[in-house]
């Protein structure tokens, strides 16, 4: 699971959960791999994200590096910044671990990079 995906995930479908966002990450196994960098592509994706959630997620798994906590104003043209964002969004993957619902504490296991977000019938 990449952190870009994590930025959109919620456990709100669960009974009794009102926001369910962001999910906490417990990462046991992280893989960093190289992905081709395309600054325009990253610049277009950034405005669609919840930056604070991304930053906290990166920090919680120890990969925040030099990433600024607040989105910089000239992010579209600042190539160093875009490279950092690219790395955080696309090159880091949680391979094994858990996602945790912030309200109920329900665990969603991540195995081989695949979060299992299936809910039991009595949870919805």
């Amino acid at each position: 699971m990449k952190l870009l995906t994590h930025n959109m995930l919620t456990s709100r479908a669960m009974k009794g959960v009102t926001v369910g966002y962001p999910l906490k990450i417990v990462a046991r196994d992280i893989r960093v791999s190289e992905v081709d960098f395309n600054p325009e592509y990253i610049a277009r994706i950034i405005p669609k994200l919840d930056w604070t959630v991304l930053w906290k997620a990166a920090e919680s798994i120890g990969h925040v590096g030099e990433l600024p906590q607040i989105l910089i104003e000239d992010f579209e043209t600042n190539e160093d910044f875009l490279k950092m964002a690219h790395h955080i969004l696309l090159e880091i993957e949680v391979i094994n671990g858990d996602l945790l619902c912030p309200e109920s504490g329900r665990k969603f296991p991540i195995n081989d990079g695949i979060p299992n977000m299936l809910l039991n019938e009595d949870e919805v």
Partner: protein
Amino acid sequence: MSSSDKTNIMTIERDDRKSIRKQKRAYHRLLRDMNIKCAEQPTQHLMICNGGLVTGIKRETLQCVLDPLISKYTLIMPTGKSYCFVTCNSKEDATCVYNYIHGRIKLPGQNGPLYVCYTETVSTTDNVVPDPAFPSGLTLMENFITEEQEKILLGTLDWDKSKDLVDLKSLNLMEYGECFLVLTTTLAIVWSHLKLRGVKHFGYEFEYETNLVNPDKPIEPIPQEYKFLQTLFDKHGHKYTYDQLTINRYIPGQGIPPHIDTHSVFEDTILSLSLGSTWVMYFKKKDQKIDVLLPARSLLIMTGEARYAWTHGINARYSDVIKTENGPTTQERGIRVSFTFRKVRRGECYCDFKNYCDTAKRETFIDDKAASELENSYVHKVYEEIANHFSETRHKQWPNVTKFLESLEEGTLLLDVGCGNGKYLCGDQNVYKMGCDYSSGLMGICRKQNFEVLQCNCLYLPYKDDSVDAIISIAVIHHLSTEERRLRAISEIVRVLRPKGKCLIYVWAMEQRWNSQDSFYLKSGKKSKESKKINQSGINHERISECNLTLPIHENRTDFPQSNMLIPWTKKSEHFLRYYHVFRDGEIARLCTKIPSASIKEVYYDQGNWCVILEKCMEIIE
């Protein structure tokens, strides 16, 4: 009351033996009906045993008999009863009436004399319940046409042609539930002495044996001289150009059994123009019955519930009970002519009144509890079993899906709901592609190619509202076994989409031929054998005991006989069955219109699939 009626009131000799027998019968009936006892000795209350509204007697006629006898009395005529009550001021008055009437007075139109009993009490009212509201969806427009126009319409008809007469005994009107009982008894009692009702059809022939219309076999169109009616309908905002007209002529004593116009044969709104005499039509649904007086020149408009769920009929009688200021009375019928305008439906009925719908009845009904069991055993488990084999056979992208993906701009966040082996997740570095699926086996296959996927149920997508730019869901929603679940899945997709975001949905079509072209699915079946016509009786069924369901098993590469099917998957020597709901023409669009936050951009047919492109609205317009 006419003077001739007055002279027709006859005084005759009383036959005591006969009248005692009649009184006894009335005694039991009254006890049963109203828990009122008859009295041996005179009281101030009288029951006229055979002088009720149901026997066709008018209030005024009885008043003509009573007025000369006693100065003050109350006449109570309960609706739906063959008897009535007279409450006098004293026992003496009552005795006077009894002696004068009982067994001695014969009213016009009656076979025998009136019989009278003393009773302990009377029913408190005429049972005049306040007019129940019309069934929902029923409207009556009085004076829809002028008397002049009515005359012209009646003048166009020539009923002497014997070919226009229908033998009512051969009618086989489709009935639903308890109404069937009503119909069969009505037929037995009434139609035996009714012979011919005049019926004329234009546009399309309504076949009474089957209650169907053949839309491919038009007959003489609606004559030019009736076109002004369509103009009037248009003026009142009716949306159809009516293409089927049935003209009925009813003579007193005739009626029509309760029926619902077959859903799949005619569109929603049915119009009926009444000419000539005023008759009562009744509407029935379960234990509710509502009488509707149809005055001459009035237009009856049946839509929605009134058209789909209420039966309507006319009692075979010579008079109707109508309400007046003094209470209910009867009104004799004259000849009534009705012009019924209907729009022939091409396709299936999608009404919300499934219990009354012939389209819905052809389908196996699956309830919500059975649905998740069914999908678990006949979708989820099967995909786990066949994941590898399925993936090996699913590589080629469908060209129109590829076209949709290619139209996405750089930096698009794309989600594939039910991504399977991820055949749409590969390629294009400028779109961020995510997939999700229920099958862990297929997700494992996706991960081997480093696709970004997760496992979830499409009824509960784990993505935030307004978070994704574009979504595809190809050949997924047809695995959901109730309409609620299919709607929920599409609603989830729309929820996750950003405003102005688009999704593309493909579902398997019931119609495997469109515009005279066979789909690839049928064509590939023809390579090995000639395509077969469906033989309904030759279809195998699978009994699914845990869901208490039986579903037909589809023969691969043939047409679908119904929309809920089990489709075989063969892997070497192993056989599996997958559940599919194949969509009919118009069904996917109809489903999508139920989602207020989505607008339909395009609906198309693509190689045996129905496809829709939706766009999420900027904001929901309340």
